[in-house]
């Protein structure tokens, strides 16, 4: 009989058999089959097939693996599995950071928003570390996480910042929910959602209330050669860095300074400063732990209200109506969200 083990068995049992087991097996067998189906090798391009499957057991399914790309690159990335759920700490800090950051992100979504992993079906979180050489980036490729080591000149390794990890994995959540188009205002909202939940992952790990948090994205990622404290500031967009090599942080803090550009898919990493600051204003006005109330409002909007073409205005009306439903008409929370979007000139 099938043995419910956590070790990935990619390649041994074909996906169509796993799908049958996931549909018809006992709870234990379903869980096991779903785990193996969601292992990265099987899910690439098979999301439609997955959508027909029953949702995994109501209990959370936290399963993480880390693969080492050994600087070989590839699209999708290559590299053997070097770490899996429950293994003792690795000697490689990038492996531990990718694993722990994925865990903290899983925990925020599961403990606070009752979301079972990136796809809400308990998918395994697969991370590739040491991607290419001197690679100055990290990204979610649609199925898994990819981290560069940085060039050591501008950037340190990208696993170093837990908010960067939360940012990237949130792109996976967005892909499975609002699926915001990656261009113009919907793209800037997509970016902002990643900054919001990336920052909340960090704030929750540090147990910081909204007034104590730094509201920076990627603090410590820039090397000491660069004049800057982080990639972005949600509290004061446009102030994260000012450096002879990088130039000045181009983020606007309100709609009056919205940047029209064809670079960066229409400035998705630039204009995200506007909804980022709206979240900061709402969270600090509400007070307490930002992930509890403001985070919940933004999460429900992302999950249930926003669509691929949603604009900043749509995000404003969506979050205000969610705040009203969750906390009451005229509640402090609702007023805080309204004032926040007014504060950045969106409404």
């Amino acid at each position, binding site marked *: 009989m099938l043995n419910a083990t956590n070790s990935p068995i990619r390649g041994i049992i074909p996906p169509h058999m796993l799908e049958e087991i996931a549909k018809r097996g006992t709870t234990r067998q379903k869980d096991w089959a779903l785990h193996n189906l969601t292992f990265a090798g099987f899910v690439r391009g098979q999301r439609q097939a997955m959508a027909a499957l029953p949702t995994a057991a109501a209990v959370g399914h936290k399963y993480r693996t880390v693969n080492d790309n050994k600087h070989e690159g590839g699209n999708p990335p290559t590299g053997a599995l070097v770490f899996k759920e429950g293994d003792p700490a690795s000697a490689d800090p990038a492996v531990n950071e990718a694993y722990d950051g994925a865990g903290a992100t899983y925990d925020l979504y599961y403990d606070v928003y009752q979301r079972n992993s990136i796809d809400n079906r308990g998918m395994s979180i697969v991370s590739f570390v040491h991607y290419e050489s001197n690679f100055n*980036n990290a990204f979610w490729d649609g199925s898994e996480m990819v981290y560069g080591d940085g060039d050591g000149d501008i*950037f340190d390794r990208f696993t170093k910042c837990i908010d960067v990890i939360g940012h990237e994995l949130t792109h996976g959540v967005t892909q499975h929910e609002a699926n915001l188009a990656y261009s113009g205002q919907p793209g800037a909202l997509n970016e902002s959602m990643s900054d919001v939940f990336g920052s909340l992952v960090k704030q929750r790990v540090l147990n910081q209330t909204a007034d104590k948090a730094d509201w920076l994205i990627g603090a410590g990622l820039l090397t000491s050669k660069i004049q800057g404290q982080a990639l972005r500031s949600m509290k004061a967009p446009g102030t994260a860095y000012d450096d002879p090599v990088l130039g000045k942080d181009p983020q606007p803090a309100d709609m009056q300074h919205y940047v029209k550009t064809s670079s960066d898919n229409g400035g998705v990493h630039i204009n995200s400063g506007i909804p980022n600051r709206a979240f900061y204003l709402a969270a600090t006005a509400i007070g307490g732990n930002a992930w509890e109330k403001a985070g919940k409002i933004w999460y429900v909007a992302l999950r249930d209200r926003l669509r691929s073409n949603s604009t900043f205005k749509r995000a404003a009306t969506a979050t205000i109506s969610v705040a009203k439903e969750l906390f009451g008409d005229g509640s402090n929370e609702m007023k805080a969200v309204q004032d926040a979007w007014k504060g950045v000139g969106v409404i």
Partner: protein
Amino acid sequence: MKISFEQSGGIAGLRFATTLDTAGLPPEDAQKLRRMVDEADFFNLPARIVSPRPQPDRFQYKLQVQESSRQHTVTVSEEALPTSLAPLVKWLGEEARRKMREKNP
């Protein structure tokens, strides 16, 4: 041949750009650049190359090449980068970063 190059996007959203003229380059570099432009069949590439499944936080590259009467601009997403164009993008990216570093004594 004049080439301008811009890299934008990535999680950091940083912009790196450079413009160069093969007339001002060492002959071996100029020759290498011409060969890479030819091998990419640059003037016949579409103006916008995107992936059917865009990936967030990937880089976006914009290249403009001008040669005598011809001029062409291509904007391409990293995850959709044609293999034939990859060496030119890599070379220009390194050049852009090198030039920006020089600004910082």
